[in-house]
């Protein structure tokens, strides 16, 4: 039976390691490595050293997996900053290739955005770069490589960046799940072939092993009655997730770090494209001594249990759910003026079954030769980007802008705009039901999604799909704010 699902093989093969893992007290995926953020006379500072490391992600008896990490931990250390407090990060490149760090979702000065060739010179091996910015918004953000990013992120160069509210909401625990997706071979090493052309024109390099905070998770220990703020980060390079919390009613209170109207997700599924975050409030209303599955069923028949919530036997912490308000304080993101906004169409094109080169993508894709399988408005910016390519459009600083995404492809695209957070307006001309903001919007096949933002941050900013194979394959452009 040579072609059994590798995911199943991993789960079974690594089963034996479960006991050892539990004994070591590591059964819960609750804790990510805490960042080495140090208080300074003004604000906070951190040092980040991208380099190679070996980590045990699938159990203590399986071989350690060779990854690329920040500071030797996988994922990179979770950095906790404070809203409005200056932050500095000294990056020392310990890789054998160039890299940069992008602070995903933070509205920061263009020169700090971490895009090689566009906002800064790349950081060569052995060299460094000092990033400095003051996060204006509280919320769940992250950082990752933006150079050779399909491979560098796929090998592990990601980490969470949490900006704490000045007055955080009342919860019993504040948990972070950095969810990553790996394609591991049976020796627990990362499988080769990041640039597979067929996958690049489909849904990208979706893996076979999903980890939470760098470990193949088993259970999360919880207590009845507690309220948990769960920060979900889809740090995968291609896998889309639809999480269902069996027996629970999670309430989404923020998307991509930006507070939204607290709401239960449609169909009870929390849909997270690559790069997206959701802060959910989870009241633990299950029975003491019982376990409840967290299931990811985005790929239908390939549904799997991500992790289980395991209730200890203790009596509920409190008789009734907390009635503290769920709404988070709004961030100082300017609200766009739709009456005066300029509208720009962003047509997403290409891919398998997309008809970019006619004939149902036919031999066209294989014959394109340039490495471009995708395009935005007919133009393909590939690889790490091409600063010489003209921006998609220029807009006056301070002007409101509507981006009208038209997905002409047969595939899903999480579209990410740098330097700004946008208000999601409508899907297929139907207004979205909740006031929702984000920096990455998941656009369904053939769907039309409108978002709006105030172009208040000067500079050339990336706008690209965050399925990394799609980005490097042409689903990338820039906009210019002057």
């Amino acid at each position, binding site marked *: 039976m040579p072609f059994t699902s590798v995911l199943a093989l991993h789960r079974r093969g690594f089963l034996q390691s479960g006991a050892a893992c539990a004994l070591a007290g590591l059964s819960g995926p609750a804790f990510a490595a805490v960042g080495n953020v140090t208080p300074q006379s003004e604000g906070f500072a951190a040092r980040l050293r991208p380099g190679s490391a070996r980590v045990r992600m699938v159990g203590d008896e399986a071989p350690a997996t060779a990854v690329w990490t920040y500071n030797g931990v996988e994922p990179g250390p979770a950095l906790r900053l404070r809203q409005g407090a200056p932050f500095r990060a000294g990056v020392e490149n310990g890789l054998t290739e160039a890299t940069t760090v992008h602070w995903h979702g933070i509205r920061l000065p263009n020169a700090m955005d971490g895009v090689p060739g566009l906002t800064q010179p790349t950081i060569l091996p052995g060299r460094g770069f000092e990033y400095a910015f003051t996060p204006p918004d509280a919320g769940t953000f992250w950082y990752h490589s933006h150079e050779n990013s399909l491979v560098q992120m796929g090998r592990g160069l990601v980490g969470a960046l949490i900006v704490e509210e000045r007055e955080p909401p009342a919860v019993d625990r504040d948990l972070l799940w950095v969810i990553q997706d790996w394609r591991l071979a049976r020796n627990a090493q990362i499988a080769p072939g990041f640039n*597979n052309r*067929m996958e690049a024109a*489909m849904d990208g390099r*979706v893996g076979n092993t999903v980890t939470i905070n760098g470990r193949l998770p088993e259970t999360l220990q919880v207590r009845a009655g507690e309220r948990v703020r769960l920060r979900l980060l889809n740090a995968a390079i291609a*896998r889309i997730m639809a999480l269902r919390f069996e027996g629970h009613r999670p309430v989404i209170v923020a998307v991509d770090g930006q507070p939204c109207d607290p709401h239960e997700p449609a169909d009870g599924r929390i849909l997270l494209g690559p790069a997206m975050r959701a802060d959910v409030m989870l009241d633990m209303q299950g029975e003491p001594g019982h376990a409840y599955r967290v299931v990811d069923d985005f*790929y239908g028949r*390939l549904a799997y249990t991500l992790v289980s919530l395991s209730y200890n036997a203790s009596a509920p912490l409190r008789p009734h759910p907390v009635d503290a308000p769920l709404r988070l304080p709004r961030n100082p993101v300017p609200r766009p003026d739709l009456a005066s906004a300029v509208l720009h169409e962003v047509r997403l094109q290409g891919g398998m*079954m997309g008809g970019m080169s006619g004939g149902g993508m036919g031999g066209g894709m*294989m014959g394109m030769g340039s490495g471009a399988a995708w395009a935005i408005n007919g133009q393909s910016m590939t690889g790490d980007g091409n600063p010489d390519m003209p921006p998609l459009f220029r807009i006056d600083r301070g002007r409101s802008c509507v981006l009208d995404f038209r997905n002409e492809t047969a595939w899903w695209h999480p579209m990410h705009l740098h330097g700004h957070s946008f208000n999601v307006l409508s899907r297929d001309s139907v207004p979205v039901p909740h006031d929702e903001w984000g920096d990455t919007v998941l656009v369904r096949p053939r769907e039309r999604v409108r978002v709006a933002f105030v172009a208040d941050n000067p500079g050339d900013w990336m706008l690209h799909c965050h399925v990394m194979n799609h980005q490097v394959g042409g689903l990338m452009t820039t906009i210019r704010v002057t």
Partner: protein
Amino acid sequence: MTRRKFAALLMVTATTIPAILRPLELRAAAPIPVTLYKNPSCTCCEGYAQYLDQNGFKVDVKPTNDLAEISRKAGIPEDLQGCHTSFIGDYVVDGHVPVRTIRKLLDEKPAIAGITLPGMPAGTPGMPGEKAGPLTIYAVSRDGTPPRVFDVD
């Protein structure tokens, strides 16, 4: 839930016995079993599976996110990959290969890993559109022999 039960649960959802391992009635007219691995979101592959079903085969369609690995391990070079990977008897059949060529493979029983029709050419079985010209189906091996032309359709 114990770790073992947890994993067992997964096995049920993720793995079933491939059709090739099931006992078969050995009649000439019995449909030939095929296991077809496809991307969970690709619809052309479903069209191809129907085409095989209508032409004397019985296809077990298995969506997977590991298509690239399955195809690579089966001996298909990346630049000759089709958009789905089938296993028929001892052979791998990659992409939208016409039934006539599959029967040629099964009749001649060459000492190869299998055959592939690269990409998703229009007008091939399961694909919409008009065929732009003759299609070349390649024979691939796992012993390092370079791919050679197996058939032209």
